[in-house]
């Protein structure tokens, strides 16, 4: 009886021992298999996500053992990031010894800036699993844009140069950087400027030839790609029309108006008192004066700074005109047209009235008749006086 009892105890002990040994043996096998697999490479594109960006996480697993390892499934999980692509790895197969297998997942960063650690989970068919946390950075700082070149003042219709500098303050490179001017109140010679890739802490600039027509800010939009995601940032250049301190400036001196027949002639000197060349300088008369031949306009040509030239222009005016406008038209090196004008008082104010100007031309004939009559009378009187002597 005692023997049987001992046999039972021994049997139960064996069973219990078997129950204990079996898992232990299985655990040892799993440890061996896990030791054969390892995450040998992680590639994240883009390197740093911006808010709303989608990208890929590529995880390479290598079997460094001598026996194949069967993999049931692989997945990437995160409570903060949206992960797609798990379904592609529902049944993976096995990795032969010395082989690698790459798992690619799509993630979308819809969280605040920070570093997140989605979990890569590899379920092994014959044993346990492989876990690996992948650090993913989310940082939404965009490109830095600054205006590094602009004129002192804009002039409506005058072509100027504006330089835009784009810098990359991000940890990762961006590519496809394109600066595009928005057509809001100005024209540009360049429709866009392609910069391309910008490495971290790298900057590039682009110069645009702009012609403003309104005092609205010039907007430049910078498009770029962070991985496969398109982003944009804009920069505005305030436009306030004013006088360019370096532009040409015409000054009249020694102005003299004289009457010449039925018209007037105005002469004088014109000096370029500015700091830039004045090209295609033309002097003519404006309001209240009507340019007439032979010098409707007087073409001077180019005037360098501090250079001067004489001019003369002919015009006619209506009766009673007290002053006229003297106009200078000139261009800068880009062909922008400028116009200056001053008022010139008419000192020669004894002007025939419109209704009597014609009479004034005819009056000498009347006077000649009067003269002849007077002369005839006097001659007759003298003749008579000598005859009656």
């Amino acid at each position, binding site marked *: 009886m005692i023997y049987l009892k001992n046999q039972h105890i021994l049997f139960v002990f064996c069973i219990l021992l078997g129950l204990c040994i079996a898992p232990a043996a299985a655990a040892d096998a799993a440890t061996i298999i896990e030791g054969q697999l390892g995450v040998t490479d992680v590639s994240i594109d883009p390197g740093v996500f911006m808010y709303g960006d989608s990208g890929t996480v590529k995880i390479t697993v290598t079997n460094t053992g001598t026996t194949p390892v069967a993999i049931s499934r692989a997945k990437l999980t995160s409570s903060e990031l949206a992960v797609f692509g798990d379904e592609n790895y529902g049944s993976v197969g096995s990795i032969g010894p010395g082989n690698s297998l790459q798992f690619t997942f799509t993630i979308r960063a819809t969280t605040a800036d920070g570093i997140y650690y989605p979990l890569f989970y590899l379920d092994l068919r014959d044993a346990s699993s492989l876990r690996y946390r992948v650090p993913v950075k989310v940082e939404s700082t965009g490109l830095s844009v600054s205006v590094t070149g602009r004129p002192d003042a804009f002039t409506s219709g005058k072509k100027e140069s504006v330089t835009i500098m784009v810098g990359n303050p991000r940890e990762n490179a961006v590519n496809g950087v394109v600066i595009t001017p928005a057509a809001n109140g100005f024209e540009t010679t360049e429709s866009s400027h392609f910069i391309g890739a910008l490495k971290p802490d790298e900057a590039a600039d682009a110069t645009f030839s702009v012609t403003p027509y309104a005092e609205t800010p010039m907007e430049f939009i910078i498009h770029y790609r962070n991985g496969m995601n398109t982003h944009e940032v804009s920069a505005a250049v305030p436009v306030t029309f004013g006088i360019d301190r370096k532009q040409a400036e015409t000054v009249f001196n020694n102005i003299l108006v004289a009457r010449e027949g039925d018209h007037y002639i105005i002469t004088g000197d014109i000096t370029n008192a500015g700091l830039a060349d004045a090209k295609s300088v033309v002097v003519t008369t404006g309001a209240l004066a009507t340019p007439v031949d032979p010098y409707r306009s007087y073409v001077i040509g180019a005037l360098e700074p501090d250079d001067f030239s004489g001019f003369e222009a002919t015009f006619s005016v209506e009766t009673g005109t007290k002053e006229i406008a003297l106009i200078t038209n000139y261009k800068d090196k880009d062909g922008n047209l400028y116009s200056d004008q001053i008022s010139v008082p008419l*000192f020669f*104010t*004894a002007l025939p009235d419109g209704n009597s100007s014609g009479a004034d031309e005819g*009056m000498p004939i009347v*006077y000649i008749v009067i003269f002849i009559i*007077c002369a005839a009378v006097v001659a007759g009187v*003298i003749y008579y006086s000598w005859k009656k002597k």
Partner: protein
Amino acid sequence: MNITDLLFRPAVFFSGRLEGDKPGLKMPIAIVLLYGIVGAVSAVYVSSVTMAMMPSEIASMGTILLGIGAVVAFIGALLIWFIVAAVFHGVSALRGGKGDFQRTLAVAGYGSLPMVFGTIISSIIVYFYLSGITVSPVSDPMQINVVLTELMSSPSMVMAGIIPLVFVIWSANIWVFGMQEARGLSTKDALITVGIPVLIYCLITLFSQIG
């Protein structure tokens, strides 16, 4: 005094009129004063046009300047009378003329009557011309002379200066007969006495008007 004889038959007019060394000067003075008044009126009108060109600060003195213009024109007529008489008297003395200066003064005064007509006609021409122009103030006083020069060089103003010369010749005709009587000159000497100064005056006036 028979004005008709003075104008048309001066030989008849002066015959026996210049009695003695001191003939009466009432009528010559009256004629010269009339000549001065007509000249003064014309001068005032021309001056008023000139004043319109003046800057406002000067134009406020307009009344005074107009008065000065009238007085100068009036006194100028008297001065011209004396100068003409003096010239005739001097030239006639060279030609052997004899007689008191007052006799020459009387002849010069009588002979000025046609010049009154010439001045009146000239003033009418000036009036019509200046009425037909618009005058604005000249901001630069230095330009007034230039403006006046242009104003005076107009055909109308030139004619207004030339036509009186015709009447000066009429006056010269009277002076010739008068000087014969006043200074006892022959016709030839009287023509030389009057003709040379008048010719010089006419040429100067013509060149100044045309030139």
